[in-house]
């Protein structure tokens, strides 16, 4: 396992405009982020020999072959569509690392696009039994069922979840790119309408159009490239049964398994991490992940997030960009570039001083797919 530690690095990040982008097609955004990531890495499209993309619900043509075609790349050594839903970003970086270390390819482009703000809503995928007949649509009600169970079992409160929303909003206010920059108080959170009681609107991530991409290469090659390399120190995955009704232990999400692997590979402990990027489909996702990753004990996530502990200047800053709750909803690609930027030291007003080690997670489905990446500068 340790053979992958520090062997590869993220050397390029690609962004696009973000927010409501009715004038952009999904394919244009996808290509824009990819081109920008390749430029940022100081490479040309023909240097890319691996492409990993993930399923985009609003345009199913955004596949590996389409991106290869749009970039004009003649031939690839690795090309795949990955589907662990929201966890795909981190999972693809792990796959790229393994493929590079296996000698299969050299420079892997990993891209994501979604247009949930302005594209027509897509029907939820089938295969979930009778959920829709009872009125369970999409991930949010499923996550709310888990969050309420956490409240029942451990006494977690809505105010504690509100503390998470308020904290990351403060971070978003320091980020010029963030969609939600108006100040938020705990009272605003408590007064916001319910989506799925006990979760309020301000417990939920926002909707966004945009794309992001990155380039992963070997640590050896990274030294010759223009950006300060951000090394992939450790990684892991954990996946539990998707359906929260029949999951063996509904409050176990796969994050614990995933984190355990990542910490073991990196040879560090939670206290060594300077900045966290936690997948925040809802405020509850942050609470449960802090527990599962070992930053606090099971059941203590609610009190852990209080008193500024997860804010900038606190014990362990979480989601310094504003996350999916306040910056932008680009699933795993909200957190990955932010943690990489923190380790590059380019976060301006929201920079965590001397950040050396960052941990970023991605989750998918009803908090059932999980990826952990531990990165260092």
């Amino acid at each position: 396992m340790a053979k992958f530690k520090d062997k590869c690095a993220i050397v390029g990040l690609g962004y696009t405009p973000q927010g409501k982008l009715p004038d952009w097609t999904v394919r244009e955004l996808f290509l824009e982020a990819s081109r920008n990531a390749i430029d940022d890495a100081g490479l040309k499209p023909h240097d890319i020999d691996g492409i990993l993309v993930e399923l985009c619900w609003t345009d199913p043509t955004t596949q590996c072959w389409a991106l290869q075609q749009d970039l004009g790349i003649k031939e690839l050594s690795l090309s795949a569509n990955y589907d662990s839903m929201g966890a795909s970003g981190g999972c693809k970086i792990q796959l790229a690392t393994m493929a590079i270390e296996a000698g299969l390819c050299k420079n892997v482009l990993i891209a994501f696009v979604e247009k949930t703000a302005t594209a027509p809503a897509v029907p939820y995928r089938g295969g979930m039994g009778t959920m829709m007949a009872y009125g369970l649509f999409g991930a949010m009600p499923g996550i709310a069922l888990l969050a309420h169970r956490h409240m029942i079992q451990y006494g977690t409160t809505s105010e504690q979840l509100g503390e998470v929303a308020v904290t990351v909003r403060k971070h978003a206010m320091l980020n010029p790119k963030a969609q939600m920059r108006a100040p938020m108080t705990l009272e605003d959170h408590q007064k916001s309408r319910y989506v799925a009681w006990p979760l309020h609107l301000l417990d939920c991530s926002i909707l966004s159009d945009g794309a992001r991409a990155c380039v992963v290469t070997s640590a050896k090659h990274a030294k010759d490239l223009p950006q300060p390399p951000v090394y992939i120190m450790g990684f892991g995955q954990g996946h539990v049964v998707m359906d929260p009704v029949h999951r063996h232990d509904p409050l176990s999400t796969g994050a614990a398994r995933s984190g355990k692997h990542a910490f073991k590979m990196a040879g560090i402990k939670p206290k060594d991490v300077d900045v966290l990027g936690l997948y925040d489909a809802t405020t509850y996702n942050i609470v449960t992940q802090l527990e599962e990753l070992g930053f606090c004990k099971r059941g203590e996530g609610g009190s852990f997030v209080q008193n500024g502990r997860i804010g900038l200047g606190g014990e362990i800053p979480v989601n310094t960009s504003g996350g999916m709750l306040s910056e932008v909803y680009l699933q795993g690609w909200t957190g990955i570039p932010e943690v990489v930027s923190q380790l590059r030291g380019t976060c301006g007003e929201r920079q965590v001083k001397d950040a050396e080690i960052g941990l970023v997670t991605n989750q998918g489905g009803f908090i059932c797919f999980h990826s952990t990446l531990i990165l260092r500068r």
Partner: protein
Amino acid sequence: MTDQIPKPDPEVTPENKPYWDAAKNHELLLKKCVDCGHYRSPIYITANICPNCGSRKPADWVKASGRGKVYTWVVMHRVFHPGFEPEYPLVIAELEEGPRMLANMRGIPNSEIKAGMPVKVIFEKLNENITLPQFAPADK
């Protein structure tokens, strides 16, 4: 209560058809492995192989007691389908036989739903083809 726009029908497949046929007769069925005795919900685990022990022998369709306890619930204020009225409850209960089950609670205000409260399965006719098992409060 009659909804003006019909709710989406559940997915009826050859594998789960006995479940829906039984629901029309106000019976809740589970599948029970003939080798290890593990109960499974036939509407979520449709494969004919036991997920607990891997037995390929056809499982028994058994009538469940229809009794359980509330595990968690939410109240949907945001409605994603016009067949539903706002503030409907989604409840997960643990059935006596082991499997958990999702349904709506009937017969009491949302504010009276409590964790651990006993529930029984009742049956709600949606249309000629589908009768949906639902929860209602039960005596202890």
